[in-house]
């Protein structure tokens, strides 16, 4: 061990770490405090004296009530959940199949296809949203959940394929060969031997894909126009700002409630998420 003096440890470790923690978490804390502050206390200018700027003595649920009563928020939550789950499942299935083919099977053009999938991985949504909106409209998918369930996989499939390809390569070939000697078909060996062994990798890819779908904004903003079909991020932006008026209490209540499901999923699968995250950038 490199020995360290006490004051040095405070200077080099505790203080910077504390600053990082405050910087990272303060916006979430502020979101929660704002959501629970009564309006009378919320709109005090920065010049006014305020006995309790960083918390409130009269916490209220009126913003949450207002949010649930005057908007379709529960419906947005449900839409977001459904779209995130379906697009994650579609992407996982496609990614598992494609990843297996690229990792294990010999065929012409496999390297080329791998490169192409890697390139699509790096195509941002903002490059193609204008023609894509037209395509969606022409396919009669506009303003239906399928518009998002089919387009989110465009950024999830490349990621899942890439991550799972790497994972499949780490599984020893002998496992499959044993199964094939026992009479399994190639397809059967893949389904019954390789996929179950790869469950940690599949879970990582799935959790990561779920959080990405929950986070998506521009496609949902453009493809969905009816208020009751919106996802949480789009609903909060378009329905809680009326004209130029921001309903800050309700906005923060919506931001908080909209973050909780994805934060919960994340907290249960932190390790898998981290594997997915670090795997997402490995060549």
């Amino acid at each position, binding site marked *: 061990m*490199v020995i360290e003096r006490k004051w040095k440890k405070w200077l080099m470790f505790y203080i*910077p*770490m504390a600053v990082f*923690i405050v910087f*990272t978490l303060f*916006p979430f804390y*502020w*979101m929660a405090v*704002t959501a629970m502050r009564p309006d009378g206390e919320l*709109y005090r*200018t920065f010049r006014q004296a305020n006995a309790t*700027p960083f918390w409130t003595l009269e916490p209220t649920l009126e913003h949450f009530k207002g949010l649930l009563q005057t908007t379709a928020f529960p419906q947005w939550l449900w839409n977001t959940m459904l779209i995130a789950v379906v697009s994650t499942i579609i992407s996982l299935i496609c990614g598992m*199949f*494609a990843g297996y*083919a690229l990792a294990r*099977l010999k*065929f012409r053009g496999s390297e080329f*296809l791998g490169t192409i*999938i*890697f390139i*699509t991985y*790096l*195509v*941002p949504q*903002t*490059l193609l*949203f*204008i*023609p*894509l909106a*037209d*395509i969606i409209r022409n396919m009669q998918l506009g303003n239906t959940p399928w518009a998002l369930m*089919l*387009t989110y996989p465009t950024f999830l*499939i*490349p990621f899942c*394929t890439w991550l799972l390809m790497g994972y499949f390569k780490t599984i020893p070939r002998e496992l499959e060969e044993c199964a094939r000697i026992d009479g399994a078909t*190639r*397809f059967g060996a893949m389904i019954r031997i390789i996929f179950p062994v790869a469950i940690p990798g599949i879970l990582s890819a799935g959790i990561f894909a779920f959080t990405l779908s*929950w*986070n998506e*904004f521009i496609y949902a903003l453009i493809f969905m126009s009816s208020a009751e079909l919106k996802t*949480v*991020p*789009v609903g*909060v932006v378009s329905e809680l700002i009326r004209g130029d008026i921001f309903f*800050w209490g309700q*906005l*923060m209540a*919506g*931001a908080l409630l*909209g*973050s909780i499901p*994805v*934060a919960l999923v994340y907290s249960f699968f932190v390790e898998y998420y981290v594997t997915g*995250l*670090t795997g997402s*950038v*490995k*060549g």
Partner: protein
Amino acid sequence: MSAAAPTERGRVSPLVRLLESESVLATALLVPGVLILVLFIAYPFVMALWYSLTSIRVGEAGQFVGLANFAKAWNDTIFQTAFKNTVFYTFWATIFKLALGMWLALLLNRSFRFKRIVRASMLLPFIIPTVLSAFAWRWMFDPTFSVMNWVLYHSGVITDRLPFLSDGDWAMWCAVAVNTWRGMPFFAITLLAGLQTISPDLHEAAALDGASAWHRFWHVTWPLLLPVTLVVVVFSVIQTFSDFQLIYVLTGGGPANSTHLIATYAYQVGVASGLLGEGAALSLFMFPVLFAVVWVQLRYMKRMEGH
């Protein structure tokens, strides 16, 4: 390969036999994914190229106009500002994310109490939908009710409010700060994963040789971390350069169109005003930069495979 056919015990359906061929099975497995990617990436890309050469609007077919849309964008002062902003935003946000992310990774690489929960909570800005957290920031930057102005005013640092989002230059720095806040965890956690693969023995040896902490970082950690760093930077540059949601929520491109990024301006022209051709051309201005970054990344990967 597939001549060894232990599967032909009993009757095997023709489909199963067909799938024993590696190339047939590979094709079947790749079709669903490739179909979605062709339909919703390759096809829109071709359409984007075509749109950008026409005067198409919502509800109006439009005509071929050659490079007129690109020429118009080139001479458009709002676009020039948006392009400069995008470069500025990408450059500074990436520098800050890398520097702070590296520092955080080094801190997290030590052993301390509650390490797991601290590490997990550090990723929250990256998990929580950007639009929602950007609203919290917008509220913190609010001209009249800003908590930061409150603190600075009451501690006597300022006598008048700071114009966080009401001045174009300030607003760009605010956007850089929020982007840094959001992206720093991604850098920190991936770099931490890289740090954990570095053997502590190397540091011990360097320390015994009398190397200072800074020298140990610069001559031992940094060179070993360089490959991971490069990949993380490439991903971050692409994400930041094409960013939309953060600016959309934080400033909406204002005040007076001074904080647009290429993507938000393309949205304003292509979707809000319905000028599909011009909007598509504006988006495509991102392409050369993205292409260059991806090309560098691919070259680098090829070189790594060679080793």
